[in-house]
Structures are given as C-alpha cells and as structure tokens.
C-alpha cells in the first residue's frame, strides 16, 4: 500500500469520536431512506399481489330480486366477460358483550369454486354448514371470540340467532375489522334464510377478460351485461365499478408513503449538512498538514484524492452499518403496515433498487457535501496552509452587527465574548443553524400535523350533534316513536331522517357507482333531513346550508363535489330515477364518504313516502362514551319493544374510533420522524460545538494564561451553545409553520379531500426548546471539560 494511505487509515482510527459522528450522520440518512423506501416497495408490491390474488370483481351489478343460476351461465357467454358469479351482501348486527356492532355478511354461492373476491383459507372448515360461518381473521378481535365459539347475530327481519364460528379466512380486499369497527362473516344462503331473511343473490360479480385496469372498458362491459339482464326481465338497480386494481386503502397508503419519502429525503439532506459541517471542520484541522504535504511534493489532485478516499471509507462503514439496520426497520415498518392494511406479506425481499439507491445516496451525497471543503483545502496555497492557526479573525469585521449586539450594556464580559465567538465562522454558523432549524421545524411539523389530526377528529363531535344513528330495515311513520324516544331521560333530541344510495345521472341508463364490495369504501349516499335540523352542523365552506324545506336544494360534501360550483344543476339517481337538484353549498365533513344532503320533505315527495323515516338520529345531554353506551342500549330496547327492525346502529364514538384507527399509523410514524429529527439536530449541535472548541484550544490556553478560571471558560462555551440554540429556535418555529401548512394540506387532501387546519402545538415548541437548551448544554459540556482538562502549556502548544 502506498504510504499516503497509511495516513488515511491512521487519521480514521485516531479520532474515533469525530469520525463516529461522521459515520453516524451518513448512516442516519441512509438508514432513513432505506427503511422507508424498503418498506414502501414491499408494501406496494404485496398490496397489489394480495389484492389481485383475491381476483377482485371488475364490476358488481345489483338487481331487485334474485339471480337464477342459468342467468349466471348466460352472462359468462357474453363477450368480454371472463367470469361471473352470484353473490349477496347483508349488513346485520352482532352482539358482543352488551353492545351491538355492525356485522357485514357475505353470502357465497359456492365456497369451493369461488371465482371473484376470493378469501384465502387459514384454518377450520373450508365451507360453513348451515347455521355456521367463516370469519375474516381480523374480525375475531371485534367479536371477542375464537374459532369454535358462537356469536349472537340478528338481521333486520329475523330474531337473534347463535351462529357457530367454524373457520378462519383472510380477505385482503377488506380493511381490518377493528378499523371499520365491524365484523365480517361468510355464510351460505341457507344460513341467511335461517337468520330470517328471504332475500336471495341480488348481486352479480363479473371479471372482464381484457383491459382489466380500464374503468371505461369495465363500465362498458358491465352496461352490456346490465342491458342483457334487463332484457331478460331483471330490474337492474346499480352497477358498482370500484377503481380497478386498487386496494380500498390505496389512497391512504399513498398519503403515508408520500410523507415518509419526503421525510426520509429531508433526513438525508440533514445528514449531508451534518457531513458537510463535519468535513469542513475536519479540513480546518488538516489544513496545516495539507501545507506540509504540499511542501514535500504532494500535488492538489493527490491531496484531493487522499481525502476523498478517506470519506469514501467513512461512507462505506456507514453503509455497512446502515443497510442491514434499515432492512430490519423496514421489516418492522411493513409488518406494522401489513397489519393496518390486512395484508399477508408473502415475499418480504426488498428490491435491489432500494439498496442501490442507498449506496448511491450514501456515497454520492456525502462526497458532494465534502468535496467543497476538500477541494478548497487542497487548493489553498502552501504559505496560507502553513500559516493557518485554526479559527482566526480574518472574517470578523469591526463594525459587524455581531459586535454591536454584543456591546449591549447589561451583558457580562463573558457573555459578550460568547456572542462574538458565535459569529466568528459565519459559514459554519449558517450550516449549524440550518441543521438545527430544519430538525426543529420537522420535529414541530410532525407534532403539529398530528395535533391537527386530533383537532379534525374532534370536529366529528362538533359537526355531528347526534350520538347515535339507527338505520332501520324499512321506512316507518316515525312521529310517535320519536316522541317516545324523547321521553327517555338523558335524550336531548331525536329526528327521523331518510337515506338512499345515489349517483350522478349520466346519459346511460344504469346507475354506476364506485362502491367497493364492503359497501362502505367509495359509496355515495343521499341523506334527507328535516330542515332545519338540530343534529347536524356541517362546516360550510362555500354557499349555504339547507334552509328551505320545499325546494330541490342540495349540499354536497368534499367527497362528492367533484368540479361542481354553487348554482349548478345536478341530476341524482334515487332508485334508478333521475332527479334534478340545485347545488346551493359545499360542506367539509370529517370522516364521511360522499354525501348529498337534501330536504327530507322534498325527498319524501319524490319517493311518495311522506312522514316516513329510515334513519333515526338521537342526541344525548351527556356525550361521553360511557353514557352513550348505556343510552344506546335503552334505545335499542325501546325499538325492540316497538317491534321495529334495525339494520344497523352507528354510535358516533364508534365512528371516531374507526377514523382514528385509520390514521393511527400516520400519527405514529410522524412521531417517530419527530424523534429522529430531534436526534439528528442535537447530534449536529454537538458536533459543531465540539469542533468550534477544538479549534480554539490554543486560544483557550491564552485565556487561561491571562487568568480565566475553568468555570469562566466553561460558562463562555456553554453560553455560546445556548446562543446558537436560541437563534435556531426562532428559525425553526417560522419554518415549521410553513411546513405544517403544506403538509397538513397534503395529508388532508390525500386522505379526506379537505386540508387540515393549521394547528400550532405549544407542547411541540416547548419540547423542542427544552431539547435545544438541554442539547446545547450537553453538547458543550464535553468540549468545555476537555478545554479545561489539558494544561495551559499543552493548550498553547496545540496546533
């Protein structure tokens, strides 16, 4: 090996603490990028594979009545249709403890020859006998049961029945049951009849044979099928074409991943700033040696090469540490996300491009960051290099504002000197401030956004002034019932509403929606309410709220507005009938799918069912979850006495929990990012401070020689750290406001189609101030101790 490379190796091994900082800085960036992109790539691939593996139906056609077996065979003959299958979905209720939860029942025609939306077998029976059911693996927790237990189930028309849970399946097309706060069961038609329902298979699921990912093509084929069904005498109710090939939670997933990726690259940039700062200081220490090497014959390019080899070695060490760790973290991440998305990770290999990207960023970015100080250092003339004595006053101007500021009368001499020291190396100060400000801004942004989420969740209670929604099996004359409900102690209000699934009428004959098979994701509902209502207070962002009970006015929420404007006329289908509406306003609802709000009176007139209600909304004086649970039970008891058949009940707290669960992963990961940021920021402050002091060892010796006590010197250094920290806090708060606004807008729009309101978390600012103050204290402690430990003679001789 050439002699000069001995120098590289010895330099690397002689100053462990500083080189460790460099390696750590690079490693953190590489780790962040690797763990996030690694988990992202695995999840993206597995989500598609899992979902595609279920053979999700391209379209579902719903009819009144039921499909005959021959019809299914006939549909299979239609060109463009690859597969067709009868199906039915029913929303029933299950009793867990003393509470009723929604139970989504999938009625399967042929368990053995399932063609679409297949669920993967896990354990127990493959085909449930009459009176038993298979359960989606995530639903057992909601049911508080296990395989072999019995579950009390009630449908709208039937009585309570005990159904045995005989098998477990995994259905990647469904969100985890705890997220939806519902149960999922798979039964035969005979079991449905046992439960007291008379309905048959009213859905036809088809798979198209080509262009599987084109919504237009699928809709076209589905309409051909619907036309044929119509000709055969079926009354087609609705065609459902969910976004092809897309998991119902794909949007939510993209949101999370977008944020992850933004943050991981920010971390890498922060890491690079750290590397650049550290390299710059390293070079300062090496400048005299560069001068010596040049004197004995080294050329600039030899010197540049020498230091670049050194950095490449550091990068290599960082990569060796960071890549395996990032794989571990990625595994932790994708397993967590897999749980949230109800996925089974079948192939956990992280694609090669992620590792290549890590290697690329982990070497190229630090090399670029380091190349500036290295090239500058190696170009410096021999004389300047030999004259170099570390930090000196060349960049310090007599009338700079740093000096003026430090001359403020009441400051002590030590503090004045601290302030001036802060401004000695401007470029390093700028880098340190940049690092701390960015770290702080991201820390606070993470907490701000997570707070904004909580605020948004609270809006659920502000907008929804009811505490219980009861969906009835059929429309009823509700007046006397509402009167009875209102007499229950603790009930503050009750209203009878109505609802129907709807869609925008197009020129074509059938109603086409984007609803997923779970009937919740992608659905569009018309809600008819008494005007004025006391139980809903939507946030109107444009136009006005419903105020006339006899006009055909409609208010659309953010998920249904599309590109419409106030004053537009829209045509909405109700039961296949197109009805004209005048758009008077737009609302922003937290946690609602697409909804069109209309007057109950107008709705009833259109459907010719005056005075009837299909949905009850009830509010309580005490809105706590505990009270609501008790009151909900009383109301259900009353309805049972009145012999009113319920199809589902939705307590508002349940909805809040469901939404909170949906975004749990986001909030948690933001917090994880915040902690990482705080770590990187403190690390940056520590390395800068220790380098600042290291450079001034000789100067400290001089101060000691002229009588400065160790405690004076310690104060001087600590104040310097505090001062840099304090400056960074102002910058980071300002930066965090901008970042929070943009990130809140991005997350809100991607997940709810409404921006999150900017929330400033005072706790976040408080924690960050504490971290910075504590961090600067700790960061200066070691260099201060070191400065005081070496003898005055050593300090004076220090080069």
């Amino acid at each position, binding site marked *: 090996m050439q*002699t000069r490379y001995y120098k590289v190796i010895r*330099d690397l091994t002689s100053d462990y603490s500083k080189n460790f900082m460099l390696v750590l800085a690079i490693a953190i960036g590489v780790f962040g990028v690797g763990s996030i992109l690694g988990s992202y790539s695995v999840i993206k691939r597995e989500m598609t594979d899992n979902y595609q593996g279920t053979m999700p139906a391209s379209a579902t056609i719903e009819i009144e009545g039921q499909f005959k077996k021959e019809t299914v065979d006939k549909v299979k003959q239609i060109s463009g249709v690859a597969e067709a299958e009868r199906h039915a979905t029913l929303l029933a209720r299950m009793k867990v403890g003393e509470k009723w939860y929604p139970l989504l029942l999938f009625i399967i025609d042929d368990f053995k020859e399932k063609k679409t939306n297949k669920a993967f077998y896990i354990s127990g029976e493959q085909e449930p006998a009459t009176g038993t059911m298979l359960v989606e693996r995530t639903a057992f927790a909601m049911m508080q049961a296990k395989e072999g237990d019995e579950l009390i189930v009630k449908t709208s028309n039937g009585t309570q029945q005990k159904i045995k849970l005989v098998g477990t399946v995994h259905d990647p097309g469904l969100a985890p049951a705890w997220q939806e706060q519902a149960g999922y069961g798979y039964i035969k038609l005979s079991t449905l009849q046992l439960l007291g329902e008379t309905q048959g298979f009213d859905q036809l699921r088809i798979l198209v044979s080509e262009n599987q990912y084109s919504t237009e093509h699928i809709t076209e084929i589905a309409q051909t099928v619907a036309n044929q069904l119509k000709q055969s005498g079926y009354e087609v109710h609705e065609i459902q074409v969910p976004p092809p090939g897309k998991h119902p939670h794909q949007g939510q997933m993209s949101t999370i991943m977008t944020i992850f990726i933004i943050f991981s690259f920010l971390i890498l940039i922060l890491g690079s700033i750290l590397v650049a700062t550290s390299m710059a200081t390293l070079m300062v220490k090496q400048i005299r*040696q560069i001068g010596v090497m040049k004197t004995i014959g080294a050329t600039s390019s030899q010197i540049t090469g020498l230091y670049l080899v050194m950095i490449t070695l550091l990068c290599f060490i960082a990569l060796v540490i960071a890549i395996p760790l990032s794989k571990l973290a990625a595994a932790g991440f994708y397993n967590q996300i897999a749980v949230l998305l109800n996925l089974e990770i079948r192939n956990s290999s992280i694609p090669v491009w992620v590792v290549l990207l890590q290697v690329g960023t982990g070497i190229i970015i630090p090399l670029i960051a380091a190349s500036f100080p290295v090239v500058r250092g190696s170009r410096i003339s021999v004389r300047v290099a030999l004259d170099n004595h570390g930090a000196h006053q060349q960049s310090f101007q007599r009338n700079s504002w740093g000096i003026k500021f430090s001359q403020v009368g009441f400051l002590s001499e030590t503090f004045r000197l601290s302030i001036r020291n802060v401004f000695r190396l401007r470029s390093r100060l700028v880098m340190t401030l940049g690092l701390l400000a960015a770290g702080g801004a991201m820390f606070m942004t993470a907490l701000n956004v997570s707070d904004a989420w909580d605020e948004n969740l609270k809006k659920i209670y502000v907008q929804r002034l009811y505490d219980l929604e009861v969906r009835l099996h059929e429309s009823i004359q509700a007046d006397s019932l509402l009167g009875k409900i209102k007499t229950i102690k603790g009930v503050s209000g009750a209203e009878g509403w109505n609802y129907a699934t709807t869609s925008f009428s197009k020129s074509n004959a059938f109603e086409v929606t984007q609803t997923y098979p779970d009937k919740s994701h992608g659905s569009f509902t018309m809600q008819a309410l008494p005007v004025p209502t006391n139980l809903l207070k939507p946030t109107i962002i444009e136009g006005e709220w419903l105020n006339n009970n006899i006009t055909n006015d409609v208010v659309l929420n953010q998920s249904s507005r599309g590109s419409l404007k106030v004053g537009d006329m829209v045509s909405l289908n109700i039961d296949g009938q197109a009805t004209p509406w005048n758009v008077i306003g737009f609302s922003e609802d937290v946690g609602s799918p697409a909804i069109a709000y209309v007057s109950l009176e107008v709705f009833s007139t259109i459907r010719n069912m005056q005075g009837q209600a299909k949905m009850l909304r009830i509010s309580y004086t005490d809105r706590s979850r505990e009270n609501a649970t008790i009151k909900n039970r009383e109301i259900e008891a009353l309805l049972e006495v009145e012999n009113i058949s319920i199809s589902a009940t939705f307590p508002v707290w349940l909805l809040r929990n469901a939404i909170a669960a949906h975004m749990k992963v986001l909030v948690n990961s933001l917090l994880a990012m915040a902690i990482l940021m705080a770590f990187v920021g403190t690390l940056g402050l520590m390395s800068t401070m220790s380098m600042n002091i290291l450079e001034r060892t000789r100067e400290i010796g001089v101060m000691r020689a002229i009588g400065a006590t160790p405690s004076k010197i310690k104060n001087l250094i600590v104040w310097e750290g505090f001062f840099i920290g304090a400056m960074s806090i102002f910058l980071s708060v300002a930066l965090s406001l901008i970042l929070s606004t943009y990130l809140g807008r991005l997350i809100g729009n991607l997940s709810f189609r409404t921006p999150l309101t900017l929330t400033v978390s005072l706790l976040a600012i408080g924690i960050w101030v504490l971290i910075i103050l504590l961090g600067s204290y700790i960061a200066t402690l070691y260099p201060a101790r070191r400065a005081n430990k070496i003898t005055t003679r050593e300090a004076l001789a220090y080069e």
Partner: protein
Amino acid sequence: MNHTQTKNLIELNNVSKSFTLASGIFQALKNVNLQIPKGQLVAITGKSGSGKSTLLNIIAGIDKPTKGTVSINGIQVEKLSESALATWRGKNVGVVFQFFQLLPTLTILENVMLPMDFCNSYPKRERRERALALLEQVSIKEQADKLPSTLSGGQQQRAAIARALANDPPVIIADEPTGNLDSQTATSIFELFSALTRSGKTVIIVTHEKDFSSYFEDVIAIADGEIVKQTVPA
C-alpha cells in the same frame, strides 16, 4: 534545462514581493538580487518582519514573487503551475520547519517515505530501505516505527531532516530549525547540516543563533525587505 548558463545553483533577479493587508500594501521584499553557489551552507538573518521567511518561501517555491525571476538548478520556478511546482519542490527542495511538522498519524519511517510516494521518485520496493538509510544517517533509525509525538524535539527535527532528504534534493531549506531546541541538540543539528553540505547539498537556513556563525560559508542579512549585508564569515 541548461546548467551551463550559470555556475550558481540559486539565482534571484530583482525579486519583489508584496502582500495586501487591511492596512494597505506591505512590501515584504524589495528588488532582491541573490546568487548562491552549489554546496554551500548559507544563513539568512534578520529581525522579525524583515522579510527573511518570505525570501526563504520564495526560494522553496512555497510562495511566488510579485516581480522578478527565480532560477533554481536552471529552472524558472516562478513560471511553474501550482501542481508542477509541488512535484518540482518535492524533488528539488527539502524543507525543514521550526516546529518539525511531521504528520502526527504516520510513523517516523512513513513520514520519510511519504515524499517518495507523492513524487513517485524511487521504486516502491526501495523506498523503505532508503528511508531507513536516511534515518540512520540522522542517527534515529531505532525510532523508525514510533509516532512523532513519542519523540523528543531533537529527534523529531532529525526525522524532519531525513524527510527533507527523502527525494535527494540538491537544496535543503530550514526555517529556524533550532529555534525550538536546546543548545546541545541545536549543535548536533548544525553538525548534521554541515555534513550535508560536504556531501554536495546546498543548505539555506533562516536563523537567529549567533553561536553557530562559524558553520556558515555565507551570511545574508536582511532588513525591511532588502539585503543589507552579504558576508563570508572569517
């Protein structure tokens, strides 16, 4: 290269050097003319700020003159580029510093081998042998595998001289090489320099030490950037 042009190894013609400082332009050297023949031990003396270090730096190719020409061993030094100058200096001028300036993370032996590595001057296999021979010449061969910080000042300066000799340069330049050493060690260092001139090297030393004037064949006194006296001691 034309060696017949002059019998002097080093020739400075009308060399001036000025620095721009905050207080204005400082004239460090003013029209200096100087000839030094081969194989001499020459002293440059003068007060602090007189320009003696600047003169030394210009002879060593560490600094370039603002005006005038510098010819060493027949080469017009001021015309070389930075990188050509570095290689030229490595092969033609050995520099010894007051504070030794050995690279702290390399052993003594490696410090001596480093110039050969940078200038690619001797075959790789011979470098170690050569470095050891040089260390023997300066009597610290047994310290070869130690780091500079473990050596005494005198030993470090010997190592620095060995390093200066690594590429067998015709000129050795030393800036107050004994300024940091006790008088006994200083004497032995001057003995070493004297021995080098006997083997044909030209040694130029900036020094304050009057006690060693007997060693010098020529003393150049400098004040305010001008050569005030060039004497050959008796």
